[in-house]
């Protein structure tokens, strides 16, 4: 619990609404190295409110790195300079005294800006609604141990399922692709027996929803994995691609059957 405060020059993105012109507003802010970057923004806002000025709009909720609500571009990088760290877990001791810090919203065609640092990520929900589940009604489940799943498969499925849906992968990608996000969900189910009945319909539906919601395509730069606060592996993208290919084959065969 140190008294060694830092003084930072903050350049924070302000934008009244989606169509307004945005700009960087400058603040000189004294901050404790023990504070998180969001606690620093709280302090800036508290000062603005006390002066009757409009505080900076930004979102956060759990502040434990699991809800995926927060997401800022700090110093040009989604979630800031530390790897596997969500914005809310970024503490000021990682910055130097008198450093200039640019704080911006996630930028992607699929994430229109709502106000200041808040963006609209509802496209991610639409992808999940298209197929990120097993079609299964409450009440009809067999005993949980009726189907055995190897520890290895279960662990791999959980590695993929840990995605927090923050959208940093999209913001990091020069094409605003959401394939890491989609690959993680597709992989979780592809690895588990419960996901098999709809395996190929699911991947087709989710990829289509991704395309329909203004997310771009993947050109294998792996920027997504580098910025993912959960460290979701790009091997999930490989699994997505392979299943997507198989899905196309399956559906073309099915179409011929129908004809």
């Amino acid at each position, binding site marked *: 619990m140190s008294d060694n405060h830092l003084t930072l020059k903050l350049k924070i993105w302000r934008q009244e609404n989606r169509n307004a012109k945005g700009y960087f507003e400058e603040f000189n802010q004294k901050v404790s190295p023990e504070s998180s970057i969001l606690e620093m923004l709280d302090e800036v806002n508290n000062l603005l*409110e006390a002066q009757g000025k409009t505080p900076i709009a930004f979102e956060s*909720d759990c502040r434990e790195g699991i809800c995926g609500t927060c997401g800022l571009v700090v110093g040009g990088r989604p979630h800031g300079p530390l790897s596997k760290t969500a914005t809310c877990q970024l503490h000021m001791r990682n910055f130097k005294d008198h450093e200039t810090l640019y704080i911006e919203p996630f930028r992607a065609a699929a994430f229109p800006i709502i106000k200041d640092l808040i963006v609209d990520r509802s496209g991610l929900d639409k992808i999940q609604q298209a197929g990120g589940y097993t079609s299964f009604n409450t009440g009809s489940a067999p005993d949980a*141990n009726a189907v055995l799943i190897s520890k290895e498969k279960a662990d791999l499925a959980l590695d993929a399922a840990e995605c927090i849906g923050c959208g940093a992968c999209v913001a990091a990608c020069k094409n605003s692709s959401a394939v890491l996000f989609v690959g993680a969900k597709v992989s979780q189910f592809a690895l588990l027996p419960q996901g098999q009945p709809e395996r190929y319909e699911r991947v087709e539906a989710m990829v289509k929803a991704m395309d329909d919601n203004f997310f771009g395509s993947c050109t294998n730069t792996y920027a997504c994995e580098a910025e993912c606060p959960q460290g979701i592996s790009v091997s999930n993208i490989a699994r997505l691609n392979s299943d997507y290919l198989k899905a196309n084959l399956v559906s073309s065969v099915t179409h011929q059957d129908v004809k």
Partner: protein
Amino acid sequence: MMKLNPNVPEGSIAEKWSNHKFSMKLVNPANKRKFDIIVVGTGLAGASACATLGELGYKVKAFTYHDSPRRAHSIAAQGGINAAKNYQNDADSVYRLFYDTVKGGDFRSREANVYRLAEVSNNIIDQCVAQGVPFAREYGGTLANRSFGGAQVSRTFYARGETGQQLLLGAYGSLNRQIHLGNVEMYNRREMLDLVLVDGVAKGIVVRNLLTGELERHSAQAVVLATGGYVNVFFLSTNAMNSNATASWRAHKRGAAFANPCYTQIHPTCLPVHGEAQSKLVLMSESLRNDGRIWVSKKVDDKRTANQIPEEERDYYLERRYPAFGNLVPRDVASRNAKYVCDEGRGVKGGRAVYLDFSDAFNRIGKDGVKDRYGNLFDMYQNITGEDPYEVPMMIYPAPHYSMGGLWVDYNLMSNIPGLFVLGEANFSDHGANRLGASALMQGLADGYFVIPYTIGNYLATAKPEKVDPDSTEFKATEKNVQEDIKKLLSVNGKQTVDEIHKKLGMILIDKVGMSREEKGLSQAIKDIKELREEFWTDVKVVGKGEELNQTLERASRVADFLELGELMAKDALNRNESCGGHFREEYQTPEGEALRRDDEYAYVAAWEYIKPGEWNLEKENLEFTNVKLATRSYK
């Protein structure tokens, strides 16, 4: 005067739910689509309710103030979910889970509800596995279990330290499927600001669109609140930044009884406060207490670092006071003792923290062994504090974590307002005066997947509620009230920010209505909170307008409600002249300093009816313990 009928079905404890399911009236499948149901909140309880009601064919409207239903704070639960599967062959049973939960709640919950919770716990695990929730597994492919506090069997299912996330994403998937199929209409970024009653029956809600500030009226034949707990009243808690009591509180002000508001859980293993700018507290799983030893210096105001304090000058106070359970005493006991040693000035460097030391575990199983068990928690600690817990002991301090109290509900999870149902942490129902670890996830999903789908059908089939036009006078009048409240907040134009006042409220509550309470302090707290509420309405500064995205206004409106709820918490704590679970009154303790329950006078649910600001009427629901014998908890 309100009427409280718990509506517990007849029969032996093990037959009540089966009998009730059979005797309840059903809605014919073709008629279900004629019923509109509103669900507020999309955490475990809300999302599972939406999904299941949608599957049954009801027309569901779901509301969340988040940008996505997946953000609800259930996502942050770490440890696990209990079920009476007995997969470990260690003599677990539905009855044992029921027994442990009633005892853990210090005999202040309703037996019939708890039994049903234990009864459906196994279905929850089956359901979640079928959804593709990747629970931890053994090498042979079966599900793994771990142990948690308050139980002698291993019945907790988990997914690393992210069980809440995985369960919520499972429920979110099922909800998404119903959205996709058109059975659930999802309203994101809407905050419920009032409940609409027509002739005393719940018929809808008024919400504020958080993007535009526009007020909307939504009508339905039943309203379900699954809006979580209220410990953010303390300002600093482990709850998410946006967690609040507003939906519950506005329903309370419309007539719903608020039960046992003084039962709050202060979790012992959280990171200590780092300074003025602290916005929330972070929990570390209590599993750490399996291998960590808790201690402070024997000296007052000892400024030495941990490693400079020799072994003989350390006080392992839990091991000293509770030789049988040691560091594994229940949450309330561990928290209270941390407070005592810090009050004595023996906390870390005289401050408010105690050490959680793994040196013995390092010697016993090696640093790698510790890393295997707790690696992610050690990483999290280092990330947040900047200190390496493999080199210096962790520092911890208790933090408000969960509210056992909440809106009163009967066996059907319906409040005393017909048509208003309350699920999950928002109701008071299952945990008595203290919740055991891994039971919150169980309750949320039990309510949403396996209780409400049956009981709401019975209400709709029996009461046959009519649809009400959202343009009716009742709806318009309620909207107008909300509009006026917003105007009032914006027009104060004082000098203090919302956070400044909220922090003051938190200080009063944690000091006087926190881990230990006494008559004088509680009376003072009531006085202080009344004054602070006055201060708020004359001196708060809420910038901006109502008709726009305005996060300051959102917080102000929540804090206004906390300022009323805080007073009721103190009033309830003052009324309850006994100690039980999370409610510890200094005046009522055994000669050994343990909680002294007074069953003859206080074996009741305190359900408060709102009269006007600062005035309530107390109704009592007597609790009968016919299956679990009333006994004193002992952990010596």
